[in-house]
């Protein structure tokens, strides 16, 4: 059965190629169906693989090239629950995105369908691959298709700029990763992750190892949008088609985090375990800084999709902080959090898509009070905002509680305070936007002119609201369905090779969660009632939209990470 695993990549790719070759003759409607069918097939296969694994790990060798004399010569897919589970989540999101966007994406020729399928294959392949260079090519596949999907609305200048900034910064990031791969290959003579990790664990740590780790991690952190590599993300997600944003925000950034997991636990597991405390500090600082910057920048936004983009950045920061615990419990917490929060964020983007369709605008200031008639969308948006703060008995609550627990054990309660502050501010920002748009409550700052950018449409089709219901139901279900924690715990252990069961969330987490909620609601009410709020001019100035600035900060960031890892690994000393 697992020999069929490569089909999860082959089916979407083959369908994409056939639609491209014959798309002119099949028409948009059939392309919709073909794309949806291929994505469903991919999801179905992933379910089958996941069942078949029974929580264990299997390695399959593509082309039948089994290792010779203990040396991996072919490319391996390492099937373990974390990767397969994440791939399944991505495929499911893509199903919803295709339904959400069906008929609206692109009439003919069906380029969006082709690109979406290739994007799906790239992401799924990335989740399954157990080979460093193969990881990189899947990474590039998903990047190139994402650049194209982001820049799809070529009539909009902002789309081009967003896509350009996205493409150039991510490409430079992937060059850093290639250098890292070359260094690993030079040292170990292996590209297979497990094998390279085995060799590196046995040799002393020197500059080559520290820099290889830093460059590989930076390459993935550019995709994950960790400060200071995050600048492109807001530009790109703000302009991508909303249906695509569902997958981008729900899953692509998280794949950057998965890349970090593969590198840190797989290739460099030996040296990282030896210097766990120092490495933890590097990642926690980067993650929490990102969480804070994301929340603050979300607060400063008027453009709804750009606001959600910064919300995404803020949450990815928390994910990195969880992985930074370098423990199975940290990774397990994040596995739950990623799925639950990914659904919530996807639902938020989907709501904004409906607002855009019905009201023809996307800026909060212009939309004030105009969303009163959108009862369903308003309710869903508020519900999603509340879920994202971690209301008890929802997925984000469970994920966040486990994360808080891992953080307080790993680095101390100050980290928990920062995480709660970030989550509360993000919740407040979302609630404020909801209050302003759907209830007409006042928001600080002037009210913008309302002039529809696109023709407002009178109704919301089922294909747009049904995915929101599914997404929110999933986000809640993750928190209440029994067995989720056990599965996440097991998956995290398989992915990290570290033992240690997930502790039950202590009772005070309900209190912490209610506290977060109270702060979020209080802040939202306060912000709605006050005109003069801090403008964060200095922080916003860094997000200049200029490519040169982004690249300069990318270089500086990579240098800082490199230096930090050098110190953390005690290399050369």
């Amino acid at each position, binding site marked *: 059965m697992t020999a069929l695993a490569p089909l999860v990549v082959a089916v979407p790719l083959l369908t994409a190629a056939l639609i491209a070759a014959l798309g002119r003759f099949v028409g948009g409607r059939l392309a919709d169906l073909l794309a949806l069918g291929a994505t469903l097939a991919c999801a179905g296969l992933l379910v089958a693989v996941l069942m078949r694994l029974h929580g264990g790990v299997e390695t399959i060798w593509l082309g039948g090239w089994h290792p010779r004399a203990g040396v991996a010569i072919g490319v391996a897919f390492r099937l373990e629950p974390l990767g397969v589970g994440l791939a399944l989540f991505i495929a499911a999101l893509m199903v919803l995105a295709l339904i959400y966007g069906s008929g609206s994406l692109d009439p003919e020729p069906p380029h969006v369908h082709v690109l979406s399928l290739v994007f799906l294959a790239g992401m799924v392949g990335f989740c399954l691959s157990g080979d460093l*260079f193969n990881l990189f*090519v899947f990474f*590039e596949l998903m990047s*190139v298709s994402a*650049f*194209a999907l982001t*820049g799809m609305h*070529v*009539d*909009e*200048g*902002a789309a*081009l*700029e*967003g*896509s*350009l900034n996205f*493409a*150039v910064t991510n*490409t*430079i990031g992937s*060059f850093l990763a*290639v*250098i890292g*791969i*070359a260094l690993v*290959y*030079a040292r170990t003579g292996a*590209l297979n992750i497990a094998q390279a990790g085995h060799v590196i664990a046995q040799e002393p740590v020197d500059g080559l190892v520290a820099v290889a780790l830093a460059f590989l991690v930076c390459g993935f952190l550019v995709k994950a949008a960790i400060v200071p590599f995050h600048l492109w993300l*807001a*530009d790109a997600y*703000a*302009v991508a088609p909303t249906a695509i944003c569902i997958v981008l925000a729900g899953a692509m950034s998280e794949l950057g985090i998965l890349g970090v997991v593969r590198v840190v636990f797989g290739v460099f597991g030996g040296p990282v375990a030896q210097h766990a405390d120092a490495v933890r500090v590097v990642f926690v600082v980067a993650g929490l800084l990102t969480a804070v910057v994301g929340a603050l920048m979300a607060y*400063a936004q008027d*453009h709804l999709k*750009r606001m959600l983009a910064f919300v995404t950045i803020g949450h990815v920061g928390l994910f990195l902080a969880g992985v930074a615990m370098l423990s199975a419990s940290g990774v397990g917490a994040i596995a739950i959090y990623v799925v639950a929060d990914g659904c919530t964020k996807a639902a938020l983007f989907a709501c904004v898509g409906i607002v855009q369709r019905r009201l023809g605008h996307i800026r909060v200031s212009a939309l004030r009070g105009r969303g009163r008639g959108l009862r369903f969308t308003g309710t869903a948006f508020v519900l999603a905002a509340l879920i994202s703060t971690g209301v008890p008995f929802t997925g984000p609550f469970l994920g966040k509680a486990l994360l808080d627990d891992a953080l307080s054990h790993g680095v101390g309660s100050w980290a928990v305070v920062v995480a709660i502050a970030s989550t509360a501010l993000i919740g407040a920002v979302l609630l404020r936007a909801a209050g302003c748009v759907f209830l007409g409550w006042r928001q600080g700052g002037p009210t913008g002119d309302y002039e529809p950018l696109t023709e407002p449409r009178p109704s919301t089709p089922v294909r747009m609201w049904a995915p929101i219901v599914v997404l929110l139901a999933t986000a809640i279900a993750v928190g209440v369905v029994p067995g989720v924690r056990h599965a996440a715990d097991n998956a995290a252990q398989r992915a990290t090779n570290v033992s240690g069961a997930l502790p039950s969330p202590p009772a005070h987490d309900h209190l912490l969660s209610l506290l977060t909620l109270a702060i979020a609601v209080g802040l939202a009410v306060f912000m709605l009632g006050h005109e003069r709020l801090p403008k964060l001019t200095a922080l*916003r*100035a860094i*997000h*200049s*939209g*200029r*490519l*040169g600035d982004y*690249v*300069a900060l990318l*270089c500086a960031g990579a240098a800082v990470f490199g230096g930090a890892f050098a110190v953390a690994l005690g290399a050369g000393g």
Partner: protein
Amino acid sequence: MTVLAYGVAAWLFLIGLVGIVRSRNLIGVVICVSVVQSSTYVLLLAIGYRSGAKAPIFADIKPGTPVVDPVVQALTLTDVVVEATVTAVLLALAVQAHKRFGTLNPDEMAELHG
């Protein structure tokens, strides 16, 4: 000589980045991205090189003759292809940006910021 080979790789990486940051022309940025990428080719091939060894093609040489590492060559080949395509996408974006903004200067097209 080791210094020269690896040094050229590092140099290309940095000088390409310099070009990107200084550039006032998107097409120039795209070209400089390809310079940065060429650094990875030089690095990979330099790593796999063996003094006095032949190319890993056994059409003219006997099996068993020392050859340079074929794996890095395969990786570089893949990398070259990736470059060609990324460059194509970037150029298409640059052309469109010029259409939309009437300029190729990346500093003059920041529509989204803050």
